[in-house]
């Protein structure tokens, strides 16, 4: 038993729903109680989708349990097939149904439905959402491609066969799904990027694919594993069974996009991309070199996300923006190894955890100037008064923007520059604020537009007390502090601009704690400041 307040990932059947809802022509019958239908709102509210996910729930109740729930399952399956006439049917169960062991998958297989049925067994008590998504995509493809499997030992297809076949090379984009981070825009960006290099897209899956498209997966010359959380197992299986090579570099950031293109071109036997391409196609390299970005040097950044985005963020932050990464972690246990490697390169110990409080604690200790995280880190960073940009699922409706905002490719790098740098102060401005901070006009009420960028805003529905968020101020002092601020200390603290005040307070308290100082005066504050200034 494990105590959870907020969780990064839903149960595995929600992962299966993500696959079903991402695709066309697939329907999912889920043996589950009525409350589990909440999952629909992830798609219709967070993703703001205009249709319900293609899921039929059996919504069994306690009174059904005595009787024949198997009948209920069969009825639901038959009705779903009649009503939605899917091209492929997924059948599975949620955590409660797993306990009553009706085995809806085998029931469905025995019904002679005349449509391909994939029975999903997603252990709800040991696995989670991303695993469920990956497994579902893999099972679905395996089920559909059964008949096409080449004999063991058959020769691998030659990645350069496109030449002899007199066509352009083609690849599959694997992994983009609903409730992933900006997947739709990433696909559009990559389509353009690949087209520029004369490469066609064979199938995008699961996003927008039909079962018939999945049947065409083996026709690609290479698979691009864009989101390993979702597409990892499928790519490995396609490689093993069909011999399709995989490009595993995820093209997020300048360096990774360039590397991705190099790998892909080498694999397909194409001319390597021009070195100048990044500078020509993205503004990030120049913006990052421009004098105004000098202030970004060594900014302390804390990163926690799914593995794909955490690894990408660490690379961009440290190499392409000149930040100092002071924390790196992920909740994706399946990809923990890769994140550990990325952390090691930065002389860090990766934080692998799905306990958001542990992450918050690590964040407080690292005392970063910027947090790159998920919706949970947005909460935590707000409590700690640190600016934050969201870079990964789990997300909030505000992370599903109307505008085109990819993460991948050259344009993705531009988007990333903007959205990470905005929560920080702009260059010259930082100096001006330093100069004018004693100015009487400099009051908390002077909200910069940047402050707004870091503050969660959406509160669609007011609570009974009109929705005032109950933010508990969190003392960063290790012992929670018998510390007392004297009037002079408080007064000096209040003269510090509000957006750095939180940090100064924490630093000062940490300093006082370390030295066993119980009363913080004006002097303590300045001693601490001197101590921390590098």
């Amino acid at each position, binding site marked *: 038993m494990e105590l959870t307040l907020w969780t990064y990932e839903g149960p595995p059947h929600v992962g299966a729903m993500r696959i079903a809802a991402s695709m066309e022509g697939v329907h999912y019958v889920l043996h589950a109680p009525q409350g589990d239908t909440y999952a629909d*709102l992830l798609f219709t509210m967070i993703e703001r989708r205009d249709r319900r996910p293609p899921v039929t729930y059996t919504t069994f109740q306690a009174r059904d349990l005595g009787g024949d729930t198997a009948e209920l399952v069969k009825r639901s399956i038959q009705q779903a097939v009649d009503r939605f006439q899917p091209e492929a049917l997924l059948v599975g169960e949620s955590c409660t149904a797993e306990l009553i062991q009706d085995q809806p998958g085998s029931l469905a297989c025995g019904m002679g439905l005349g449509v391909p049925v994939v029975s999903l067994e997603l252990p709800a008590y040991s696995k989670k959402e991303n695993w469920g998504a990956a497994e579902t995509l893999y099972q679905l493809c395996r089920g559909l491609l059964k008949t096409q499997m080449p004999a063991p030992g058959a020769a691998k297809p030659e990645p350069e066969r496109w030449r002899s076949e007199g066509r352009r090379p083609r690849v599959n984009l694997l992994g983009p799904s609903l409730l992933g981070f900006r997947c739709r825009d990433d696909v559009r960006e990559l389509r353009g990027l690949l087209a520029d290099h004369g490469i066609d897209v064979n199938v995008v899956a699961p996003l927008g694919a039909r079962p018939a498209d999945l049947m065409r997966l083996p026709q690609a010359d290479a698979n691009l594993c864009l989101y390993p959380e979702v597409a990892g197992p499928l790519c490995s299986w396609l490689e093993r069974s069909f011999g399709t090579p995989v490009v595993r570099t995820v093209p997020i950031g300048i360096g990774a996009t360039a590397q991705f293109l190099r790998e892909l071109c080498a694999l397909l036997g194409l001319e390597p991309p021009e070195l100048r391409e990044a500078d020509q196609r993205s503004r990030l390299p120049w913006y990052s070199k421009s004098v105004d970005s000098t202030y970004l040097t060594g900014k302390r950044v804390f990163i926690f996300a799914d593995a794909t985005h955490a690894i990408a963020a660490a690379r961009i932050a440290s190499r392409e923006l000149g930040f100092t990464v002071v924390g790196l972690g992920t909740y994706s246990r399946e990809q923990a190894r890769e994140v550990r490697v990325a952390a090691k390169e930065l002389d860090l110990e990766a934080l692998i955890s799905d306990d958001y409080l542990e992450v918050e604690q690590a964040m407080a200790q690292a005392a970063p100037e910027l947090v790159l995280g998920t919706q949970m880190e947005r909460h935590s960073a707000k409590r700690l008064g640190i600016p934050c940009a969201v870079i990964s699922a789990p997300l909030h409706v505000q992370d599903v923007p109307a505008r085109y905002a990819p993460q991948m490719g050259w344009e993705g790098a531009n988007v990333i520059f903007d959205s990470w740098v905005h929560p920080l102060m702009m260059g010259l401005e930082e100096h001006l604020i330093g100069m004018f901070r004693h100015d009487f006009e400099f009051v908390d009420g002077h909200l910069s537009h940047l402050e707004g960028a870091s503050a969660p805003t959406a509160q669609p529905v007011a609570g009974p007390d009109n929705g005032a968020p109950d933010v508990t101020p969190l003392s960063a002092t290790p012992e929670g502090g018998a510390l007392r601020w004297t009037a002079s200390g408080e007064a000096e603290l209040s003269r510090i601009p509000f957006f750095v005040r939180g940090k100064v307070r924490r630093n000062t308290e940490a300093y006082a704690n370390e030295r066993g100082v119980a009363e913080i005066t004006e002097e303590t504050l300045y001693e601490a400041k001197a101590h921390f200034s590098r």
Partner: protein
Amino acid sequence: MALTSTLPPVLRESGQREVFCGLTSIVWLHRRMPDAFFLVVGSRTCAHLIQSAAGVMIFAEPRFGTAILGERDLAGLADANEELDRVVNDLLARRPEIRTLFLVGSCPSEVIKLDLAKAAERINTRMLGRVRVVNYSGSGIETTFTQGEDGALTSLVPLLPASPEPQLLIVGTLADGVEERFLSLFARMGLETVRTLPPRQSTDLPPVGEGTRLLLAQPFVADTVRALERRGAQRISAPYPLGVEGSCAWMAAAAAAFGIDPRRVAEVLDPLAERGRRALEPLRRRLEGKRLFLLPDSQLEIPLARFLHRECGMELVEVGTPYLDRQLMAEELPLLPEGTQLSEGQDVEKQLERVRASRPDLVVCGMGLANPLEAEGFATKWSIELVFSPIHGCDQAADLAELFARPLNRRELLQWN
């Protein structure tokens, strides 16, 4: 009962439902009683449900959490009990300010028959009064959405001290401001001893006994009422305090039960009602003649339909309710217009077909259905908003109507050419 003659037979449906389970009530209960903690004993699904239901609505440090059952817990029950004790210990060590701990049962904990009542007892003994531990079920196989509150309140009833003192006890969560308003109005009428369940502090429990008269602020507290009746309390039959008419009748029924001079009641209520109706007038003009379809969700559907029809002039196409308690609706049902089609339970696909066929101007529905219906061209109102917003009372009547007028106004405001 008069209702059989004026209302057609209730449409009873059983099929796929599209409604939250009782765990959802935690989202407002934890804000109501800030010294309480709600620990769901369940699965990752349960944790994800409350976070999703809460996450779209509020940013708040949660005073709820889930003890997630793992494979090891499912293997042997003795183990699960020990594990639960450990989780509770950790939790209480971290949150020493907690005074009441609700252990909330879920589908998985019920299916594996984890005895939370026993667990509560065991922890209570160990805690020696430092916290009170109670338990109830919010499972989706037993309860829908608002019924979770009923379970939570029922679990508090055995803890209420006994007292024969005459008092009015308002049952069901009201918004703080609204509640204060009601208390001051009752005081003006001369009704001094008015208490509420749930209280604002979980430890500030109202007494109950022969002198207690119950006034229901929400229609979904049937089990709580029965438990309180067993402690000697008596229910005042009244419509629910939605709209001017309902709120006045509700307050008047309470006053009458305490023998307060009707003239005094009128003195307090008449100007309120007058003002409330004036405020409603422009909204009535907006809503009049518009056709309304209510999908079953919060159990507030019947009183809402009554208000929207009688005071706002809306036409009722269908009024769905997850569960129909005729006793608790006895004062509401006769106020529905002749011919109102009620439905109980749900078969969501069939119900949506009826929505499409009848083309209502406004649909009241759960969050999962709202955007898809909007995309089909229907204006919608989230039912969950109605349990979060201050909607009760005469002064709130216009605000309540406005919630329904807004989606219609918005559609008229928007233009693309």
